[in-house]
């Protein structure tokens, strides 16, 4: 409680917001168990907190139907009440407790959910938004604050229905100058995460061996923003810039773009559903096939 102003923040103080993927459908399918994964992650968090006395860590759990904050290292009530035979470092007692509660709540929400037929993606857009809100609050707390960054630990595939929300969050992060690092541990490529890291200037890596996850995390993602200027981090060869269309949420690489609001559609529409502008008719009537009045956007995966 000693006056915060008297603490001098050096360049390498960081605030790490970790977005943890707790999508049960994904963890069901991987070979690594969730507990192994958690031990890697918790050790990594310890390491980050050990790098600098003033470092802060916030963990947000990304569930299947909801997201929530599960840990904040700047709060003092982190010591768990449970003490019987617990082998867990006391520091993370509350994290695990809250995580368990969160998963229970998430399960309840999933029971009542009617939209069962969707790709088993986690709510990345929700947790990104929550992270950005927290960071914005930190920014507004005064001049002295650690440098924030977001680390996204994701294994679930991208949900195309979240494309708009995710892109909005990415652009907000770009505006706030908060880099989004991403570590993808799933099997397919994640276009959202690649784009997020590319646009905000963060690091993206997809480690192949999950039993060496701790090593990956500490080598690549533990470096603070100031040190990244001196350290060579792995860069992806190309970025997958594919978007999903706004009408069907399909992933497309060639489609129609509204020239007013830049919304993307996979087929011709009479009216843009986002901004309401009416599209003209003339050229389409003339050329029956596939040309349209709007520009054609073509994005191809670079890698």
């Amino acid at each position, binding site marked *: 409680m000693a006056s915060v102003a008297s603490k001098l923040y050096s360049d390498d103080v960081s605030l790490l917001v970790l977005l943890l993927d*707790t999508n*049960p*459908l994904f*963890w*069901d399918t991987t070979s690594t*168990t*969730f*507990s*192994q994964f*958690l*031990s*890697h992650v*918790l*050790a990594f968090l310890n390491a980050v907190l050990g790098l600098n006395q003033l470092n802060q860590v916030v963990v947000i759990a990304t569930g*299947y139907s909801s997201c929530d904050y599960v840990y904040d290292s700047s709060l003092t009530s982190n010591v768990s009440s449970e003490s019987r*035979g*617990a*082998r*867990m*470092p006391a520091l993370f007692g509350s994290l*695990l407790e809250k*995580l*368990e509660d969160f*998963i*229970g709540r*998430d*399960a309840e929400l*999933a*029971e009542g959910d009617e*939209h*069962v*037929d*969707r*790709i088993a993606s986690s709510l990345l857009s929700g947790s990104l938004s929550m992270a950005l809100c927290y960071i914005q609050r930190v920014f507004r707390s005064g001049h002295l604050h650690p440098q924030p960054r977001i680390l996204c630990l994701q294994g679930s595939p991208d949900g*195309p*229905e979240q494309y708009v*929300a995710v892109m909005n969050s990415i652009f907000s992060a770009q505006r706030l100058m908060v880099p989004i690092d991403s570590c993808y541990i799933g099997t397919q490529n994640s276009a959202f995460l690649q784009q997020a890291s590319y646009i905000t200037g963060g690091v993206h890596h997809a*480690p*192949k*061996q999950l*039993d*060496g996850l*701790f*090593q*990956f995390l500490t*080598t*690549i993602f533990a470096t603070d923003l100031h040190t990244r200027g001196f350290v*060579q*981090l*792995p*860069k*992806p*060869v190309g970025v997958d810039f594919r978007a999903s269309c*706004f*009408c*069907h*949420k*399909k992933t497309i690489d060639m489609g129609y773009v509204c020239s007013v609001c830049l919304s993307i559609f996979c087929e011709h529409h009479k009216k843009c*559903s*986002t901004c309401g502008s009416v599209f003209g008719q003339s050229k389409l009537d003339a050329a029956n096939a596939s040309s349209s009045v709007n520009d054609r956007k073509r994005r191809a995966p670079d890698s």
Partner: protein
Amino acid sequence: MSDWQVKYKSSLKDRGTEGILKLREGILLFVPNDPTSDSKLKVLTPNIKSQKYTKEGSKKPAWLNLSNKQGDSHIFEFQNYQDMHACRALITKALAKCEEEQPKKPAAVLTSAEQLSIADLELRFKVLRENIELQRLHKEFVETKVLTEDEFWATRKKLLGKDSIRKSKQQVGLKSMMVSGIKPSTDGRTNRVTFNLTSEIIFQIFAEKPAVRQAFINYVPSKMTEKDFWTKYFRAEYLYSTKNTAVAAAEAAEDEELAVFLKPDEILAQEARQKIRRVDPTLDMEADQGDDYTHLMDHGIQRDGTMDVVEPQNGQFRRSLLQDLNRHAAVVLEGRNIDVDSENTRSVAEALARVKQVSKADGETTKDANQERLARMSRLAEMEDLQAPQNFPLAPLSIKDPRDYFESQQGNVVNEPRGAGTLKRNVHEAYGSLKESILEIRTKGLRDPLIKPEVAFEVFRSLTQTISTAKNIIGKNPRESFLDRLPKSTRDEVLHHWTSIQELLKHFWSSYPITTTYLHTKVGKLKDAMSNSYSQLEAMKESVQSELRHQLSLLVRPMQQALDAAFQHYDADLQRRTAKSARGSAGEANGSV
């Protein structure tokens, strides 16, 4: 008459030999009277550089001094000034004609079979000069005779055509300088006042002074010639400038045509009055009243800067500077609305008159327009606090529900066919296993050892490799492109190959199907050029450094593929032709037997 009796002097001091000076087509011939003297002279008119002559009225005799391009000068002494002037005029005319003919001669040399004009060639050179890339292509293909000039430019008509279209479409506006008001040149010695009259000035005068235009149409050529008309007009101008209103009045009384020029312009006054009538009645016209012919003469600056008060009966012979300037400005703003050839003064006058008629007819107020004006007047003149309360129809405010936006993004999700029931069970099970994992870690604690050393080492190794290879492929800056890493000469070469191969392929594919021998030879030449390019590409690939070689070959591959496709097509077509001709000749042989 182009023969004059002159004395020829080779220099000023020379006494001069008498003879006859003849001016014929392009030749000035001097034949001395005395057949024995040998100062015969023949001068080609193109060779004459300049001519000097003595002034009339000076004590010297009439001399004409011709100097030619080589620097010699020939002096001819004429018998009187009239002769000298006539000769001089003829020589000037001949010189002018010569100058016209001169540029035509080289044009005759340059004309190729396609009969290009000088303008076209100049345009081509200009385009080539401006675009270096194009120049390079031109040099490579046209000069090595792979493509002809025409073929090269055939696809670039847009580049050539645009300039000429641009030139002809531009409309020339009117000068804002009052050329009609330029003071004449006065010659104090001969007491002559010379007014210059060009077609531009004539146009301005007709546009600004409709009375003059009307007078021209009425009087010329019925009552007087054009020259007389202009003389009278300028006399009137001169009278204005002398500020001598008494003289002006006197002359006006004598000469009715002159009076037309001297009195205020009735047509203009009428137009002005009509315009004023048509203006919105709520506009304050007090300031405008003074602008036109309906104003008072006792204030304002006169045309030449004085401010004298003028007697009322001669008041009409004065004009003010303001009037003239305003009228000129109005004409300039209207712009040039006729396209008539300005040589013929009469046609200019008539065209202007026609335009005025048309605009007058358009401008006449109809009954409806009058009604509208009255309605507008009454609306603006009403007093607000005496009005009845007006209930205007209000458009309802439409604020959209923001939920629509968010929900529309959710709708129409692509549904993957999956059994709903099985998924629910899966979810339930998955949550269960997740909870178990957490319980496990709470009881067991973190894994021990967290990570095996071999695994960690493996991770380090793979990361190092990834980072170093990425650096090689991408370069230090992820946004840098491969082209920038090539040495400059290679890069330029690659880009040039790209454009030249495109050009070749364009011509190649456009010549198929081959119907004439011309196309056949063209295709043959193109094919040779293409194989040349291909081998150059191969050589370039070899020459570059080993680390860049792979990327370069990737870059070059599409070009080579395109060339390969072209070669294939060529070979297939050739085969087909030979087969057909073989069959044809065999058939012929059979048939002829």
